[in-house]
């Protein structure tokens, strides 16, 4: 688990599917100097001291629906499509765009609704949390969209990346969940699959983004967990140098760049900026 302050959502579901003991989560947050987060978790429904799985899943869905609202305001689907369009391998053979940690699949579904990418591009979302992946699939079916969603590890060979050379991997708001020491492995996994390119959007860390995150989550979010984690996301975001260094070590065969303005003169459009890597 990442050092320093934690997001509450990192603690609500165990990776192994084991029940989460509420007091353990509360104690962990207290030990990290996060009394407010500990208080929020202590109020979550539990049975015999274990977080109520059904209520936690419902909370997770509510949080991700709220999060989608911010994605809409940031025009995230269009942003991703505008960059991915420039990264697609040449030719008219099928290309797959894989959204890692897709949540409710807002980005891919927004692209599919508008037809922002060419017909030969297949859109596949993947999330470790099966509740989110299932809901993304349900929404996609309801909307009659040409994209699919699966639960699992995106970098497990064959799960969603079959022909790496014709795959572009994207994510949004994922990298800050990873510890700096895990970033190398994140990029290395994509290099091992020989993906054509990757583009990962995340918050540009600075005082403005932290203040903006606080204000926007106060104004827009209803769930206490969302309000807390929104600010923590901005605080935990990795600086461009950290991301570039990790990409250089993990995926040395890729030309990587972080597309953002100067730290001292941040461009308002760069609140969420991509690290883009293209296989040389």
């Amino acid at each position, binding site marked *: 688990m990442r050092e320093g302050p934690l997001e509450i959502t990192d603690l609500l579901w165990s990776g192994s599917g084991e029940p989460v003991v509420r007091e353990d989560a509360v104690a962990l947050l207290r030990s990290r100097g996060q009394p407010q987060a500990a208080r929020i978790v202590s109020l979550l429904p539990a049975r015999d001291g274990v977080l109520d799985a059904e209520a936690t899943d419902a909370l997770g*869905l509510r949080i*991700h*629906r*709220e*999060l*989608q*609202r911010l994605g809409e*305001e*940031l*025009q995230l689907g*269009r942003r991703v499509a505008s960059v991915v369009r420039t990264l697609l391998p040449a030719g008219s053979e099928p290309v797959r765009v894989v959204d890692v940690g897709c949540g*409710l699949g*807002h980005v891919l*579904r*927004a692209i599919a*609704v508008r037809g922002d990418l060419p017909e030969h591009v297949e859109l596949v979302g993947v999330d470790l949390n099966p509740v989110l992946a299932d*809901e993304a699939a349900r*929404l996609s079916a*309801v*909307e009659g969209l040409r994209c699919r969603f699966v639960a699992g590890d995106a970098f497990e060979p064959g799960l969603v990346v079959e022909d790496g050379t014709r795959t572009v991997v994207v994510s949004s708001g994922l990298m800050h969940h990873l510890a700096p020491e895990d970033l190398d492995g994140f990029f290395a996994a994509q290099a091992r699959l020989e993906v054509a390119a990757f583009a990962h959007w995340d918050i540009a860390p600075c005082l403005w983004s932290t203040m*903006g995150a606080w*204000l*926007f989550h*106060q*104004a*827009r979010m*209803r769930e206490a967990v969302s309000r807390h984690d929104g600010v923590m996301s901005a605080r935990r975001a990795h600086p461009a140098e950290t991301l570039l260094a990790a990409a250089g070590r993990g995926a040395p065969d890729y030309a990587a760049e972080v597309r953002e303005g100067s730290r001292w003169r941040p461009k*308002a*459009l760069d*609140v969420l900026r991509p690290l883009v890597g293209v296989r040389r």
Partner: protein
Amino acid sequence: MSLIVLVLLGLLDAAFSGFRSAQGRSGLIDHAHGDRAGMLRGVRLFPWLSLPALAFLAIDLFLGQDLQAYGSSADLFLLIIAPFAVIVLVALAAYGILRWELRYLASAIILGPCTFLRPYVVAAAAVVVIVRAGEVSVAVAATLAVIAVLAVEPILDKRGK
């Protein structure tokens, strides 16, 4: 006149409150239908929440209070919140007409911060009006009206859970 404008602004604000409360509910990409339904819920709820203020106003006028006292307070209230309302409406228009790369700026720079500031601006306007009027009846009516305005979104949020 100002009283009527304030009521209309209250209805508009209630529609926006309903809109905000409807956001992030379904997970659908196209949620225009839900947005419209949310706005209608806000507009329908506001008159009910305004009943205490309106009833108090009616009773006070019936008991002989001068309408002018309320009129001049409404003028002042409007004077304070009108610039705020104009900024929000201009930002909404900008959101509607800007190209997508710039559209979110209207939200990031104006609409988001204004949503955050809205309760404080309304409450501050009420305090100024109450202090300037120096009348208990105006203070009660203004307080009830402000509660009605600010209660729309939390009530809809609670219902939506």
